[in-house]
């Protein structure tokens, strides 16, 4: 405790040097803090993107069947009846929707527009995707069974086709077929891969099949299924797999003609990638922390030489070698801890600034500033460890000085 005060006094006597000494650690800790923070924002971003994709989503898609080593492509195997069975027969499934891809231009009045996504879906779509409507309603089972000529559009279409006028009840034409706009989706922004998600038109999948494609088959391109909860994801996956194996009469040992993908796994992999990136960046930043530590050692060594006489005086009046060791060690640790605190504050400021910059540059995405308290504590402890590690050698050197020679030192 006493040596603590002695160390503070000694540091206070040379504030300029103390400031320069801690600069390295300040930068090091600030860099680590910023990197970890940005990394965590990125992971959180990934996480929220997956939440945007829908809640507890499982994707079922037809797979190419192999027959005797030959891949038979383009054999659609998933039907709307399969999807309906998944929805009604799997207890862990909350909602399921068939999805049929479509394309083409949308015309309203004398304006035309190509939506990037045009899908035929079922009434459960919004539930699965966790996507609320802004105005109007969504199509019902009746619309699906009657292949009604209705559609729901995203914000981009509202902006491009209707500008300020109300799109509800208006008629747009797709492939020369008139569709009534019955609903408008909430904006969703860009997805993980930078694609805009609001440039979308949704119709009943039956409408797409029968009216746009003129097909009587009820094959679908994929199904999106939502489990009742996070915990029931794997149950749901198993149930779907068993159900489809049975329905498609696939015997054990035969390859399945469909794939059941859990978006969570994908999220985990992506999370792992961002986690690895964060670690990598933090490690690189950590190197600057070590450089900062070497800076402290350097200055402490200079300081020991410069204060040889002071050490001699202290020893003459009764300081034991370990008192001197402790004083210099505490000085080093104090320096690095102060540096750590300032660095952490700077890091918080920098990551806030960077996050804001990212949000301004990539409009639509909403990065959150993530400041983790454990990261702060770890940064602080690491700074203290740097102080001990790099302060020990100079402190030991100071404690081993000979009092007589130190007193004579000019």
């Amino acid at each position: 405790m006493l040596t603590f005060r002695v160390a503070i006094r000694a540091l206070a006597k040379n504030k300029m040097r103390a400031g320069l000494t801690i600069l390295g650690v300040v930068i090091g800790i600030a860099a680590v803090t910023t990197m970890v923070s940005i990394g965590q924002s990125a992971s959180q971003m990934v996480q929220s993107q997956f939440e945007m994709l829908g809640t507890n989503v499982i994707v079922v898609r037809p797979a190419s069947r192999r027959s005797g080593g030959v891949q038979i492509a383009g054999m659609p195997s998933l039907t709307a009846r399969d999807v309906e069975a998944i929805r009604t027969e799997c207890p862990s499934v909350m909602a399921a929707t068939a999805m049929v891809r479509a394309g083409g231009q949308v015309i309203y009045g004398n304006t035309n527009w190509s939506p990037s996504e045009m899908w035929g879906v079922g009434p459960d779509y919004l539930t699965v995707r966790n996507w609320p409507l802004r105005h109007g309603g969504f199509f019902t089972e009746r619309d699906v069974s009657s292949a009604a000529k209705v559609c729901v559009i995203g914000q981009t279409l509202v902006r491009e086709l209707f500008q300020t006028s109300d799109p509800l009840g208006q008629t747009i034409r797709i492939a020369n077929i008139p569709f009534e706009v019955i609903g408008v989706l909430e904006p969703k922004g860009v997805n993980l891969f930078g694609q805009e998600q609001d440039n979308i038109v949704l119709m009943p999948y039956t409408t797409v099949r029968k009216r746009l494609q003129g097909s009587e088959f009820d094959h679908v391109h994929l199904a999106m299924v939502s489990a009742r909860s996070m915990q029931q994801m794997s149950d749901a996956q198993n149930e779907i797999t068993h159900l489809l194996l049975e329905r498609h009469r696939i015997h054990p040992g035969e390859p399945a003609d469909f794939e059941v993908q859990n978006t969570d796994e994908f999220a985990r992999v992506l999370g792992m990638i961002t986690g690895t990136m964060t670690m990598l960046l933090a490690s690189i930043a950590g190197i600057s922390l070590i450089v900062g530590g070497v800076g402290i050692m350097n200055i402490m060594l200079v300081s020991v030489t410069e204060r040889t006489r002071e050490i001699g005086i202290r020893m003459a009046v009764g300081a034991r070698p370990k008192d001197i060791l402790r004083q210099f060690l505490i000085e080093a640790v104090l320096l690095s801890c102060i540096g750590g605190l300032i660095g952490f504050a700077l890091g918080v400021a920098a990551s806030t600034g960077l996050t804001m910059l990212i949000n301004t540059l990539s409009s639509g995405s909403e990065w959150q500033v993530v400041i983790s308290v454990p990261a702060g504590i770890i940064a602080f402890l690491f700074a203290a460890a740097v102080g001990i590690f790099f302060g020990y050698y100079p402190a030991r050197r100071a404690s081993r000085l000979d009092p007589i020679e130190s007193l004579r030192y000019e």
Partner: protein
Amino acid sequence: MLLSMHRFACDERDEARISMALIELRDIRKIYDLGEVQVEALRGVSLDIHQGEHLALVGPSGSGKSTLMNMVGCLDRPTSGSYRLADEEVGNLTADRRARIRNRRIGFVFQNFNLLARTSALENVELPLLYAASVSARERRRRAIAMLERVGLGDRLGHHPGQLSGGQQQRVAIARALINEPSLLMGDEPTGNLDSRTSREVIELFQRLNEDNGITVILVTHDPEIARNAKRIIALRDGVIVQDTPDIDLAWSSLHSQEQEVEP
């Protein structure tokens, strides 16, 4: 010469009867190993110093008087021989134990004051107490103020060494040396950097401390006028005691005569 030796022997016997010696040096040798050559700075010094003595250590440079002073001050260890301080063998103690002894029993005053720069007089005087166990901050402050008042610097508590005159700095150093109430006060050329008037003041302070407070004072000096105030003079030459006398002139002449013997 013969007479003084005789008297020294008598003194030793008399005082041994009265009190035990504070310092007992027996055949102290100090050899500095400078790699290729070995320098013998002390070659068998035996000396008894009693509580309350006022001693001057004189001799030309290289005579070993500084080495002897460092030895007595527990800053250094003898290569061989026995050093008993207050009936405790201290010649072969560890650095930690010697620091303890310096802290509790010995006060140092140096030629160049050796105060901590940019540190107030008060803090400088408090310094030894920082390394003494269990003295509260309040107690440290109280004692340091009292000590500075005693040396006449009660109005200079917050001044840094740079803001004090040489004499004032040396008095701060004396206050620091006395703060732990040592039984032994050592001065290494304490007036070497002071003008004659301030020197006299400092020497008078030493004298008062010796006479009024019974503190044992050992001064290393080459100035006969300073040495004259001491009651006992030890003259060293080439690492041995050549004279131990209360008579400064005798001590000086013995140093001088030896010089002539050596140099012809």
